[in-house]
């Protein structure tokens, strides 16, 4: 069994959330880490390369950040957000990016089954959740995305830096005004879901899929300091409007 840390920071501020993920990405000595988190206030995150003006929803969220990872914008509300950070040589991420998505998404699909959602890779089929003009991740599907009921319900993106990998994931528990027509786990379960219980299911699935043992932990003092130092950039107007 490979040891991973499990860090939960539910209801954390947006700059801290992004700063801690960057701190974990950059620290080559950091152990493999799964973060389970949510946002306070609700936050719209832009993909790293997105143009600010291409995402009209920025004016309707409680806060806006730009992620280190690519892809489309996500409105982080009523969802479980998670990140995986480890070395690129880790068996979970070794090899082509597409293969690592397939492996991780297989584990996520297993977790979703606990809540009545039978998710599959999209393939080349258009989805009912696809749409133009919003810039939102959940309105644009790729073959590697997870969907159920013909709609996208999980968003994910990776950053690869100096032999390290940061994998961002977003599992939708409910909809928001900015993300209509998507698949939500709460709808499949037929009840409101707490991010923590979905996080527990994700941990079980990742443990089984990859033979991992997760140890609950808090960010170290050094990681917290790094997160506080790195965090403000993500909401800095110059960074938000860099494109």
């Amino acid at each position: 069994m490979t040891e991973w840390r499990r860090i939960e920071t539910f209801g954390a501020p947006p700059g801290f959330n992004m700063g801690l993920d960057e701190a974990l990405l950059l620290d080559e000595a950091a152990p493999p880490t799964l973060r389970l988190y949510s946002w306070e206030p609700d936050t719209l995150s832009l993909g790293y390369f997105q143009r600010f003006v291409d995402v009209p929803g920025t004016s309707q969220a409680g806060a806006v950040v730009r992620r280190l990872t690519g892809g489309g914008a996500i409105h982080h509300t009523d969802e479980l957000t998670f990140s995986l950070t480890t070395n690129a040589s880790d068996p979970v991420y070794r090899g082509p990016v597409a293969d690592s998505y397939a492996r991780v998404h297989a584990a996520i699909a297993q977790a979703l089954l606990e809540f009545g959602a039978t998710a599959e890779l999209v393939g080349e089929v258009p989805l009912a959740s696809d749409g133009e003009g919003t810039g939102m991740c959940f309105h644009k599907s790729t073959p590697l995305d997870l969907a159920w009921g013909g709609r996208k319900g999980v968003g994910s993106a990776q950053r690869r830096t100096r032999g390290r990998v940061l994998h961002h994931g977003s599992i939708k528990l409910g909809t928001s005004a900015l993300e209509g027509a998507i698949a939500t786990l709460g709808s499949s379960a037929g009840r409101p879901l707490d991010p923590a219980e979905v996080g527990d299911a994700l941990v079980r699935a990742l443990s089984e899929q990859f033979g991992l043992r997760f140890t609950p932990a808090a960010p170290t003092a050094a990681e917290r300091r790094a997160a506080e130092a790195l965090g403000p950039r993500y909401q800095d107007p110059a960074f938000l409007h860099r494109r």
Partner: protein
Amino acid sequence: MRPDDRKYLSSHEWIKIDGDIGTIGITDFAVQELCSGNESDLVYCDLPEAGRSVEAGETFGEIESVKAVADLNAPLGGEVIEVNAAIEDHLEILADDPWERGWLIKIKLSAKTSDALLDAAAYEEVVAQEA
């Protein structure tokens, strides 16, 4: 075997040195890792402007595929003197010919060597471990 007329970084960039000019690109392995043969999966490449100085090992740009953003690292330091303008609009060049037409930047070298540089044989070992 990859070209032995240049040096490599373990992060999958190459540099070909001609006098005091270094031409930098990324390897076929890096491209394959990002797009798994689907060249249309490469969606964006951000390169520096001419005139910028880069240090050996410094990130000089970024490349995005449909599912990942990856850093581009400079094998050696120097001043950027030319950027391959064709790349940003034609990322498929990287998949078609990463060794010649797919070069990314040219720099005027401030130093011609670094301990981090690998020859082709050593780079093949890196690839064998990661594949």
